[in-house]
């Protein structure tokens, strides 16, 4: 596999897309470094696919520019751009066999001896024996790999993936995630991956841009996004967050917030919102960071930890962990994930409990936002 070294960063400058009066993508600046695995994550209709299609040239940008390695490609038609796309439905040519599908891009660029390259590429995606089959004779996962091979064989500077795993079942999807990650590491091409599956984005990408309503809400490494969400949308869309509304009592190296009849603390540097004494603030903490103690053992909890008292309303045993829903003055349905190491038999629905966690695991958000933004609803999940 020869690596393309002439590539460069993908740079979107003030790019936007408007359909009539609907702003699919609001003016947006984004830089994707060369060789990175970049994910555009968001719910359907957030503008992520439109952004990808503008990079591919399949959609004309209303404003702004797309540049690749310093060269402005905004005005180029798709067939002149050194990028290739793996389409959501694969879009394999039904009248051509697998090897001709894979060879399509090479042939269009006038390369005559494609046989060796095609064989190599089919080997890379482990489909060497399928060269003479037609697309409809392949399973979904195999078609998906053909689509990847057909794009990669051209050594594009950027590979665009538009929900490439959306049509696969869960198990195959997990397998293909690792496969794509392996291929990306092997060929070193920039991958821009569009997905609505936060787990997929976090597993595969080095950098994730969370999009919402045509804007990038936050951009960063998966762990950073997860630990330090800057908006309620990101906090709720990536995993689950407990968001507690409170009133700022004092601010120093730690911010002290009054919430649910108690006082909670968080480090100042983990708060992205401006704090005014007496002002409102949203405190967030991830369910797995919280420990659960029965109310009778409340004295045994170490000093200096954040505490919230409440009552278990629901618990479900997941295997590795048990997930509790706790009702408390601080929040109606606080989520707690407890590892199943030493299970306390008293922690059943109805039990009075104390939730406690390290203040350092608390993050602070601006209370002016919708507290439920990005919460996955039943329709979204379907």
């Amino acid at each position, binding site marked *: 596999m020869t690596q393309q070294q002439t590539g460069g960063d993908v740079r979107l400058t003030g790019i936007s897309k408007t359909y009539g009066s609907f702003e699919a993508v609001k003016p947006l600046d984004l830089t994707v470094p060369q060789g990175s695995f970049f994910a555009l994550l968001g719910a359907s209709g957030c503008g992520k696919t439109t952004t990808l299609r503008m990079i591919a040239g399949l959609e004309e940008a209303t404003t702004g520019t797309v540049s690749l390695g310093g060269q402005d490609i905004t005005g180029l038609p798709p067939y002149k751009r050194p990028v290739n796309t793996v389409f959501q439905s694969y879009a394999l040519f*039904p*009248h051509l066999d697998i090897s001709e599908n894979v060879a*399509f891009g090479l042939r269009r660029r006038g390369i005559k001896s494609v046989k060796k390259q095609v064989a190599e590429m089919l080997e890379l995606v482990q489909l060497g024996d399928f060269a003479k089959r037609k697309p409809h004779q392949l399973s979904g996962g195999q078609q998906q790999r053909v689509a990847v091979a057909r794009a990669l064989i051209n050594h594009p500077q950027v590979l665009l993936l538009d929900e490439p795993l959306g049509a696969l079942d869960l198990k195959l999807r997990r397998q293909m995630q690792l496969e794509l990650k392996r291929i990306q590491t092997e060929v070193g091409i920039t991958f821009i991956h569009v997905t609505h599956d936060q787990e997929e984005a976090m597993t595969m990408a080095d950098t994730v841009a969370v999009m919402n309503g045509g804007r990038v809400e936050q951009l960063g490494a998966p762990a950073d996004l997860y630990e330090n969400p800057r908006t309620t949308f990101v906090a709720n869309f990536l995993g689950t967050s407990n968001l507690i509304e409170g009133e700022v009592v004092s601010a120093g190296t730690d911010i002290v917030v009054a919430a649910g009849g108690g006082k909670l603390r968080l480090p100042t540097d983990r708060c992205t919102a401006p704090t005014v004494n007496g002002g409102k603030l949203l405190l967030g903490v991830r369910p797995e960071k919280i420990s659960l103690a029965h109310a009778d053992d409340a004295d045994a909890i170490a000093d200096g930890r954040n505490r919230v008292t409440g009552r278990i309303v629901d618990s479900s045993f997941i295997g590795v962990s048990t997930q509790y829903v706790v009702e408390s003055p601080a929040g109606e349905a606080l989520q707690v994930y407890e590892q199943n190491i030493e299970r306390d038999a008293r922690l059943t629905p109805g039990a009075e409990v104390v939730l406690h966690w390290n203040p350092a695991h608390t993050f602070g958000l601006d209370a002016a936002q919708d507290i439920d933004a990005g919460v996955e609803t039943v329709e979204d999940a379907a």
Partner: protein
Amino acid sequence: MTVTKEAPPAPVTAELKVRKPSTRKRLVPYWLLLPGILWLLVFFALPLVYQASTSVQTGSLEKGFEVTWHFQTYWDALTDYYPQFVRSLLYAGTATLLCLLLGYPLAYLIAFKAGRWRNVVLVLVIAPFFTSFLIRTLAWKTILADGGAVVDVLNTLHVLDVTSWLGWTESNRVLATPMAVVCGLTYNFLPFMILPLYTSLERIDGRLHEAAGDLYATPATTFRKVTFPLSMPGVVSGTLLTFIPASGDYVNAELLGSTDTKMVGSVIQTQFLRVLDYPTAAALSFILMAVVLIMVTVYIRRSGTEDLV
């Protein structure tokens, strides 16, 4: 899982209950086929057998015909009328080609570019069917009439000089020339070309065009390598639906042509209805059928569309 909670019915009753409808279900396709089969039998198979027997009969209208296995009729029919056969295939072939050239862009437009006008344009395509075939063909007589606007324009542009040199028209008239017949055929059979073309173009996934563009194909190459090959089923059925009836057509040749442009359809019609030489007419019909069948078979084999349908 609510399904597992329900107790399964006792096995014996279940089997009885299942088996009866399954026998009935197996028969359903045959019941559905029955009207079609009957229709074919009465209106196609039986007349065909009757015609086959007529073609090997000898006799006259006064004395009556009887089967004498006189295969000579076929040979005579072929030698007497081979110019009309050749002309039929030539005219039908030309008309089919013209239909394809005219119909493809229109079908492409309806399938990919018409947007909300799609249904309107489709209705316009079949609108001529609301008028009788004969009347529409007669209208062409007026259109192409001597001294009419069309002839005048073609004359002024010196088009007729070229076409008459090619033998398609006369130097100052279009009516009663091969071109008039081909025009009539093209016009009358155009919808039969457009509709199957449209159906097969419309089925092409638009993302395939995007994928081709993404893989460095220019729009022209995309058409050549993706769109056209994928529309082959439509091209094949469209050309068949045009060529087969056109090669047997006699209305256009009768109304728009002259004795020099007679097609085999006219000959068959004349033999049946005026000369009353039934064996020759039947033999001509069979020869035409055989020729068309052979041509169609070769054509379908060569176009290799089995995979796509």
